[in-house]
């Protein structure tokens, strides 16, 4: 989230698209309803009418997979009706930048597409520069080659009639949404977009989010209280686990994992390649070196490139993400798997195949509170033949969150501490202790090795106190970072050094543990103004609560609206002050060079209306991997930058066999794969049955009655469940034809107090062109009575 939960109360309009917060983030509605009570509007855009829709002022239906069409139409509307915030757009976005001649767009493809590689040369989408290397601009936004005009041209194709022919949205409703959200383009007004996996779990997921951000930049909503682009994160610490490098492509604090390319053979080369020349990331060497110092301690020296060579290097261009990991497992390339509280046999795409892949492992370790469908994948109940499965499986019982202590980071980036309320149940242990005990054993196994290959594990520092349970305070101190000589805690990441004199396990968390102590433990619930509780816990970065908040002020540094003041330039003090920590150099005056570079982390300091992700600088509508209609915007059906994985893992269904669009989702009473909630009586009682939601129209066509048992099939599997026939699903009336859609929760599996068949046996094994997040949210199926 650019903003945070309490801040939702300040919005004039919340557009909820690709999310269902009333069910999946219920307490968000505490704040959304406060906004509503003050006259704010709530818009819910979703393939079906949800509990969120019931609390909304306007509900608009759209077919799964048509978000870019929907949003592209809104951008076109805002530009045509001139509802955008012009001063903001000129000052804070790259709308005025002149684009290089190479850029072009024709019939669904941008320039420089390489069909064989299914990729573009992103450097061909550049800005024109003068002789000094400065970007050329036209602040009148009239130059036909400026971003603004190119964007206008691009989205002029997204007229209302075309859009609703693709999305199936009722025209009157669509226009009402456009008008209502467009009203937030007025200076001083703010609108927020809330999204979750309904946006990201598509082959165009990244561009879905990009186009939300573009609309928000056009309307001047980024950086505003009650504004922003807000990802509603679904797991208690999925923010933290991402911040801390638990994805293959990032180390801590969103920095690069080294690759085996010749430029990165040395640490110097690696830093040169990956450090931008402008923007705050210029400081990357300080952050990276401090991380290496945290990893290897005194074994990281200037002489040995601070231990850079101890870090594993990825094969260049190789994709190690979840689906490719399972492809590799299926192909027998993996021997061992360690899992910490994860259940892919229920939660993974094409879960039946992912389950099969597990049996190719030699060994597997599951650390969990419960026996899950994944840790028990070899059992008969899972449809397996135990005798045929040679995988050795270790189950290590973990304790629950309140049986240990430690911090987690919420969606608004608040790092909140949890204290221990009770001893771990039975023999279960904290994951911290399990990881610690494994590390100690591994270090012991390697301690006498003289092989150079074993240096990394020997060089890794692991000084977290004596005994079996690590001293969490020492872990916290290392994450924040300290001066290697004085051992004093570093108070801010700006003070980190690239010469090895400081360590910091994760630069974006630097500042949470100063000499004052661990600030994530703070419980002062004083509102410092505008719902900013600056002394409650600690937020990264630097305790900032609203990202980009410089943009809540006009170029001269005063708030666009007095009612929406979070920070402002105090000319007397010559400082940015207010009730939030300015997301800006605190003494950079508005009228000096860079004083209006509101997004100062970025190389240009400006919000990117034009920004090169893998499938192009402007989001363009493509149809999902599986879908029943042709793309009316171009002849390119599927996102041209999407990569295919192992064919055996991803059977494709055709519309003639599987004419119905399907999507998966969550319900309020269960969580993710259900391992936590289906093992508890009260939540199991609230939602005991797997069901398939469908419209009355489809049910009638198929001769299905409410409560009947039905079978849903896709090219990958079948699922039996109860039919839930509802008025909340309606057929999508598209231009080409009427398309039915069904939906189902993905919480169920064969373990637990309540059980049900697993929706993900139906889902495809293909993902977004940038993130490779699977396309769970739009695929084809058929349904019949059981």
């Amino acid at each position, binding site marked *: 989230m650019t903003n945070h939960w309490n801040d939702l109360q300040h919005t004039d309009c919340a557009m909820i698209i690709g999310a269902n917060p*009333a069910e999946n983030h219920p307490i968000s509605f505490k704040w959304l309803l406060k906004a509503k009570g003050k006259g704010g509007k709530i818009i819910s855009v979703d393939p079906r009418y949800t509990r969120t829709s019931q609390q909304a002022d306007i509900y608009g239906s759209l077919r799964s997979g048509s978000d870019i069409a929907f949003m592209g139409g809104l951008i076109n509307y805002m530009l045509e009706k001139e509802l955008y915030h012009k001063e903001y757009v000129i000052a804070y976005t790259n709308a005025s930048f002149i684009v290089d001649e190479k850029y072009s767009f024709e019939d669904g493809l941008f320039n420089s597409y390489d069909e064989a590689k299914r990729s573009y040369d992103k450097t061909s989408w550049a800005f024109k520069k003068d002789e000094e290397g400065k970007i050329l601009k036209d602040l009148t936004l009239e130059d036909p080659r400026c971003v603004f005009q190119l964007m206008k041209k691009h989205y002029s194709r997204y007229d209302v009639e075309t859009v609703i022919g693709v999305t199936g949205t009722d025209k009157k409703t669509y226009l009402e949404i456009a008008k209502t959200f467009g009203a937030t383009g007025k200076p001083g007004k703010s609108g927020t977009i809330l999204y979750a996996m309904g946006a990201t779990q598509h082959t165009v997921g990244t561009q879905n989010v990009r186009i939300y951000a573009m609309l928000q930049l056009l309307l001047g909503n980024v950086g505003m209280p009650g504004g922003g682009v807000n990802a509603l994160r679904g797991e208690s610490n999925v923010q933290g686990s991402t911040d801390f490098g638990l994805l293959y492509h990032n180390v801590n604090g969103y920095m690069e994992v080294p690759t085996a390319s010749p430029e990165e053979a040395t640490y110097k080369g690696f830093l040169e390649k990956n450090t931008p020349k402008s923007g705050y990331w210029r400081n990357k060497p300080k952050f990276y070196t401090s991380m290496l110092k945290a990893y290897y301690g005194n074994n990281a020296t200037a002489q040995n490139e601070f231990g850079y060579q101890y870090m594993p290097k990825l094969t260049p261009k190789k994709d190690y993400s979840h689906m490719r990991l399972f492809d590799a497992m299926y192909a027998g390339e993996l021997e061992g798997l360690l899992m910490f509280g994860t259940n892919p046999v229920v939660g993974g795409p094409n879960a039946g195949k992912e389950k099969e892949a597990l049996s190719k492992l030699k060994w597997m370790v599951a650390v969990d509170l419960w026996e899950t469908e994944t840790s028990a994948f070899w059992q008969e109940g899972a449809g397996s033949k135990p005798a045929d499965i040679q995988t050795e499986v270790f189950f290590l019982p973990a304790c629950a969150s309140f049986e240990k202590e430690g911090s987690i980071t919420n969606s608004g980036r608040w790092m909140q501490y949890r204290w221990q309320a009770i001893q771990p149940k039975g023999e279960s242990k904290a994951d911290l202790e399990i990881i610690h005990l494994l590390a100690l054993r591994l270090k012991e196994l390697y301690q006498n090795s003289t092989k150079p290959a074993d240096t990394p594990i020997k060089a890794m520092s692991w000084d977290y106190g004596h005994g079996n349970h690590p001293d969490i305070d020492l872990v916290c101190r290392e994450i924040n970072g300290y001066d290697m000589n004085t051992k004093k805690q570093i108070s801010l990441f700006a003070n980190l050094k690239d010469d090895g004199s400081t360590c910091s396990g994760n630069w974006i968390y630097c500042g949470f543990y100063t000499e004052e102590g661990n600030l994530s433990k703070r419980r002062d619930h004083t509102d410092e103004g505008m719902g900013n509780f600056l002394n409650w816990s600690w937020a990264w970065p630097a305790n900032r609560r609203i990202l980009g908040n410089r943009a809540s002020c006009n170029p001269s540094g005063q708030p666009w609206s007095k009612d929406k003041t979070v920070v402002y330039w105090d000319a007397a003090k010559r400082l940015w002050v207010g009730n939030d920590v300015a997301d800006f150099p605190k003494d950079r005056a508005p009228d000096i060079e860079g004083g209006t570079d509101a997004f100062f982390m970025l190389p240009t300091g400006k919000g990117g209306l034009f920004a090169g992700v893998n499938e192009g600088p402007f989001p363009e509508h493509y149809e999902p991997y599986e879908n029943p209609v042709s793309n009316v915007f171009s002849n390119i059906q599927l996102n041209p930058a999407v990569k295919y994985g192992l064919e055996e893992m991803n059977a494709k269904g055709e519309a003639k066999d599987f004419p119905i669009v399907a999507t998966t989702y969550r319900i309020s009473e269960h969580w993710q794969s259900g391992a936590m909630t289906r093992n508890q009586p009260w939540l199991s009682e609230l939602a005991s049955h797997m069901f398939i939601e469908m419209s009355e129209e489809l049910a009638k066509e198929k001769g299905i009655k409410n409560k009947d048992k039905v079978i849903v099939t896709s090219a990958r599997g079948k699922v039996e469940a109860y039919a839930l026939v509802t008025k909340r699903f309606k057929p999508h009336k598209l231009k080409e034809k009427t398309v039915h859609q069904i939906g189902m929760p993905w919480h169920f599996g064969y373990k637990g107090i309540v059980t049900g068949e697993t929706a993900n046996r139906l889902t495809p094994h293909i993902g977004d062109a940038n993130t490779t997040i699977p396309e769970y949210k739009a695929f084809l199926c058929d349904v019949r009575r059981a």
Partner: protein
Amino acid sequence: MAAEYLKFVDVTKCDGCRACMVACKNWNDLPPEYEEFQGSIQSHEQLTAHTWNVLTFNEQETTNGGFEWLFRHQSCLHCVQAGCEKACPEDAISHTKFGSVVVDADKCVGCGYCVQGCQFNVISLATYKDKRGKEYRKAQKCTLCTDRLEQGLQPACVTACHTDCLIYDEREAVLSEANSRLLQVKDRFPNANIYNPQGIKGTTTVYLLADKPSVYGLPENPKVALSQVVWKDYAQPIGKAMLGVTTMAVIGAVISNSIAKVKNGDKGVDHHE
């Protein structure tokens, strides 16, 4: 007896999260009851002895072609003139100073007359086993968390509610909030109404409903039958003194059955009286 505090259920603010259902179970240590698939996301068909509040889900097409998904936190209304209390031959059901209607388990003999006496299908019998394995029954229902009220805490369901759909507050504050909310929601919900039936002298749980009571399965104008009032407030005390407890229980059964007939023919329909 008018309670100083009222529980207010503004169904138009409910987002259907069902925290109230499990908050009740959590405070009152009630066991789970796994029910058959209801054909909607509703978990339980109705209130039971172990499930004291149920969130109902109701899909409703509106007259103007619109659609509403109506949610209602359904639990004991704590009637001022309570049918269950009037039906009880053992004086096991009474009002507390909070206006909550509670069952004294020591006095309850599990006869079930209260079940017949309640027009809202709220109270029911739970079956237990004693040390020798012999079954016995006790009437059970929402207590309005009277034990929490005694300690100055709100009912558990109210504490959990994040939308202010459930409020527990001073009578005047609740009634004035109800009136102002009614005006606010009339545009979207033309049939909205405040449900605080005066035929039973009002309730300690007051509703703002988004549609007619019958849409929610509530009687439009509930009353405790005169015969029941006479029985409870006059005949029973005198009778017990003159004829003894057993005889009066038999007479009570006859009266309760007649009430049940009225009630069952009256479910959710606006035609009586």
